[in-house]
């Protein structure tokens, strides 16, 4: 499933159009600035040709060109895992409750698979359009260390893979949302409360 390309198909069309436009603009009246623009254009064309943006790997952007859900042509894949020091049945019972499921936003969520104490899968739609689908599986951590929760989400980014990269850089990526949800689950299950500072005094005005 993991292929060497990491640009989405729609992106590649955009990269070709953008690359050609930049080079054409540079050729109309050559200058040093426009030569720079032309080389950026060339780089875009090269990426469109190879289907790879070298910046995506360090950013953690992974594209799936053949997702399991038929109504998504391409998706961005997010995978995270967390170990929770509680028994599997308790963790399952908690995550299964609607508000605790590690979904990305308040979308309409439909559970598509349920295996007691082991697996959950779901589809999240907004106005009947698929936003993301995900699954989690639970297994016992070795040595009686609790439960390992592994989550895989695939979402359809607005703005293609470039949009996904930008949201990563801005720090509000689906990855962050997922990690925050899993951490929330761990805190509630292990300590019974969520760590917070909201409402504490400060000298800010």
């Amino acid at each position, binding site marked *: 499933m993991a292929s060497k390309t990491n640009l989405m198909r729609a992106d590649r069309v955009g990269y070709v159009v953008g690359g050609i436009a930049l080079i054409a603009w540079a050729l109309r009246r050559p200058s040093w600035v426009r030569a720079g623009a032309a080389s950026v254009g060339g780089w875009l064309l090269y990426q469109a040709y190879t289907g790879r943006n070298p910046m995506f790997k360090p950013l953690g952007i992974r594209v799936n060109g053949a997702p399991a859900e038929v109504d998504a042509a391409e998706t961005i894949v997010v995978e995270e895992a967390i*170990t929770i*020091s509680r028994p599997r049945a308790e963790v399952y019972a908690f995550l299964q409750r609607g508000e605790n499921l590690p979904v990305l936003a308040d979308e309409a969520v439909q559970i598509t698979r349920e295996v007691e104490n082991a697996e959950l899968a779901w589809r999240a739609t907004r106005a009947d359009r698929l936003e993301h689908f995900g699954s989690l599986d639970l297994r016992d951590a070795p040595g009686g*260390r*609790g439960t390992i929760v592994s989550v895989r989400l695939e979402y359809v980014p607005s703005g293609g893979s470039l949009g996904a990269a930008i949201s990563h850089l801005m720090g509000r990526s689906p990855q*962050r949302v997922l*990690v*925050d949800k899993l*951490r929330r689950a*761990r*805190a509630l299950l*292990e*300590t*019974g*409360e*969520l*760590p*917070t*500072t*909201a*409402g*504490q*005094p*400060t*000298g*800010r*005005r």
Partner: protein
Amino acid sequence: MKAVCWHDKLDVRVERVPDPVILNPRDAIVRVRATAICGSDLHLYGGFVPGMVKGDILGHEFMGEVVEVGSAVKNLQAGDRVVVPFPIACGNCFFCQRELYSLCENSNPNAWMAEKLWGYSPCGIFGYSHLLGGYAGGQAEYARVPFADIGPIKVPDSLSDEQVLFLSDILPTGFMAAENCGIQPGDTVAVWGCGPVGQFAIASAFLLGAERVIAIDRFQERLRLAATALDAEPVDYTEDNVLELLKEMTGGRGPDACIDAVGMEAHAHHSMAFAYDRVKQAMMLETDRPVALREAIQACRSGGTISVAGVYGGMIDKFPAGTLMNRSLTIRTGQTHVQRYMRPLLERIEKGEIDPSFVITHRLALDEAPLAYRMFRDKQDDCIKVVLKP
């Protein structure tokens, strides 16, 4: 209430802020009776720690009286006199269950920030930047204490506030630094930095069976204290070549264990290395100045242990990996797992084995905090440790 607020580099102010309230069932509110400025607060004061926001309430060394508890706190009640440990720890997670409280996985609501810098997040800490949770600190009239059913320890009336205050941080920190040395009979331990943590590391090394302790600093009042109060052998690094002197003092072999009680803002006397690190730090090419750490590694006996109690924040340059590897050295470090040490150390204080109040040189009102920070930073008036009384 009144609280010491961070505003900018070298700018702390005492301000009126709202009183803290219970936010979670396991919280307690403590009326602060005594609080101290820590050497690590000077890293915040000097602007060396990222993630500080104007208005943040400082302070992680404090003790006081419980005035209110949340619904889930059964072991404390209003009126109890308690010392609060600086690491905020839940007591339930993988790390807390292994008594590695400063690594608590559940207490830092801003864990993602720390992960960006350090890979994984340690626990939240009172008044120690948003990287470590952004919790309001204890240099104030009142403080909110999360996980109050796990952290605070009740103290007997027979001991004064000043005798127990340092159970919150620096006494356990000095003790853990010595414990990490794995001291064997006959061992010589060298301690870089004779501030309060260094003093407690020296005292603890002796308590744990060290034969000799060598104290390294440049401030005469600290060296004098280490020599007279604790029987350590003082070395002034501005006068002697530390590496050569240590070699001589230890029969040509080096100290069995070396404690770095200095951290990221180390100084060195007329040294190229210091100038190099200071310039790189100022240019933001290196966050920490590891002058003491490098020297401790270089000085340590082969097969010995370097115990790091001083605080580091980020990256260092010119790390002597070759020395470490070829001479089978061990480095042990960590933010102190204070909760693990409070009870045994309280017992030692009760038995009279140690009276931690010997490091206090200055007692000021909370209102005088800006003066106290300046005095402590610049070591004016032979200042070693400041206690603030709200």
